[in-house]
């Protein structure tokens, strides 16, 4: 008798959670996680923060230590790549030639960095930041007062800038749009982060059109189309990620900006689930298809997928949330602000370092950005989840405690 086997492709945050959740849901067969990096699943958020600074080491990043996986019978094959899935015969094939049969399969393949294709982009010292090896690479190039040019003023770029300033590097951020965080926040938030980074000594240039990276063997400057030149000992590019969907696509699964999954994280194959950054789902809170890039989605979808693979019914309906630590700023974001028609501010983003922004659409709260204001985050999460009505005119009044807003009734 062959033992039933669930294979998880991708030793990611979603993969780790899915494996553990399978056991919690009662999966008794083999669980095998296959990952192309040489590491057990690890936390990625600290990479641009405490791991970059050297405060944390690889072992500190691991979601769970090896012994804990052994204890519950979760096997790993690490540093190897899956090249194809044979859905008819229910097998996965590795690059090195081995193949494994599955009864159930989960794809937690994550995302990879979007590459910039410019003259000189393959020079030494032109780097990205997504995994442990990337950061170890970056560490070879950093040192006090070295010049780093960061391409892209998104969260990765800003967090990296904050940490490299702390390590006393000379930091310049080049952003293509007319403001940093253009894709994800209101102009008030962008202005706030631009001000703080300026105060901390980071130079930010917007509306930048890059021409090329130049240097002899290794990068020494970044050249722009308007003729401006920025000297650089190191360039870090953070311009977003693309989902790893090729494996799914080749196997004939539905893919459209992510592997298409239903509310139970199931693909169009009844034996294959997918979870995390690589998926595209219909979000019930926002009534549209979306692909999320965050830990919350990875963990919540993984739990739902594990239940589905065990034959149970669990619906994904979590509210997305995110966080970003820069300098002494803790930003907590709940919900998606895209499409907002009004923003209400609580606190003074022009001067202080503590405020929150409440995003509304058609009178309904859809997202909160909370800077050093955890109560705004916590209460906002409740308001959105429970659909409570909010008196907008009172939100900016800081003499009213955030908790008071939980006393209202649903919209």
């Amino acid at each position: 008798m062959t033992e039933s086997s669930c294979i998880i492709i991708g030793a990611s945050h979603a993969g780790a959670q899915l494996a553990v959740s399978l056991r919690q849901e009662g999966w008794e067969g083999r669980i095998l996680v296959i990952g192309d990096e040489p590491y057990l699943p690890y936390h990625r958020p600290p990479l641009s923060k405490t791991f970059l600074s050297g405060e944390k080491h690889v072992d500190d990043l691991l979601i769970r230590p090896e012994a804990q996986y052994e204890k519950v019978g979760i096997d790993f094959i690490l540093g190897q790549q899956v090249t194809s899935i044979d859905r008819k015969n229910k097998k996965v094939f590795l690059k090195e030639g081995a193949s494994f049969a599955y009864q159930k399969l989960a794809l937690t393949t994550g995302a990879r960095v979007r590459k910039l294709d410019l003259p000189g982009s393959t020079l030494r010292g032109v780097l990205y930041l997504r995994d442990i090896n990337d950061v170890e690479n970056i560490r070879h190039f950093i040192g006090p007062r070295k010049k780093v040019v960061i391409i892209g003023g998104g969260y990765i770029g800003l967090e990296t800038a904050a940490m490299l300033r702390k390590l006393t590097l000379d930091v310049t951020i080049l952003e293509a749009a007319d403001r940093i965080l253009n894709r994800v926040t209101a102009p008030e938030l962008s202005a706030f982060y631009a001000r703080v980074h300026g105060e901390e000594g980071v130079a930010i240039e917007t509306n930048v059109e890059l021409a090329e990276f130049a240097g002899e063997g290794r990068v020494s400057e970044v050249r722009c189309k308007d003729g401006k030149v920025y000297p650089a000992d190191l360039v870090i590019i953070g311009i977003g990620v693309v989902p790893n969907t090729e494996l799914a696509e080749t196997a004939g699964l539905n893919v459209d900006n992510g592997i298409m999954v239903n509310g139970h994280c199931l693909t169009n194959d009844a034996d294959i689930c997918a979870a995390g950054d690589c998926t595209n789902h219909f979000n019930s809170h926002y009534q549209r298809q979306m692909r999320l890039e965050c830990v919350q989605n990875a963990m919540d979808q993984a739990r739902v997928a594990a239940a589905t693979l065990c034959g149970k019914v669990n619906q994904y309906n979590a509210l997305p949330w995110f966080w970003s630590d820069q300098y002494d700023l803790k930003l907590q974001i709940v919900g998606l602000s895209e499409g907002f028609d009004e923003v209400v501010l609580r606190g003074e983003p022009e001067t202080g370092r503590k405020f929150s922004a409440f995003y509304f659409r058609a009178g309904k709260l859809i997202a909160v950005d909370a800077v050093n204001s955890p109560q705004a985050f916590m209460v906002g999460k409740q308001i959105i989840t429970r659909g409570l009505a909010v008196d907008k005119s009172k939100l900016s009044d800081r003499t009213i405690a955030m908790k008071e807003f939980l006393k209202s009734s649903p919209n």
Partner: protein
Amino acid sequence: MPVVTYISADGAINEIEVTSGTSVMQGAVDNMIDGIVAECGGSCSCATCHCYVDEAWQDKVSPASEMEKDMLECVLEQQANSRLSCQITVTDELAGLVVKLPASQF
């Protein structure tokens, strides 16, 4: 290694050896105690590792930071002994620590 006792909302008791220097949250996550969610992995950002420190141990654990206190103000079912378990570092002095877990982290 210090032993920490986790008591789930349904009364289930787990006595776990937790490595000194790691957090009460990590001990629960490592051992798949599902009353602790810990989405943010210990950066005091999500408040999904809420626990109640047993009265006998309340004075022995390190005090909460302002950020943690702010978060705790708004967790479900807050009590005087509420803490975020990611912010409690396990030490040899805390051998025998008892924490209770809430029914829900959301």
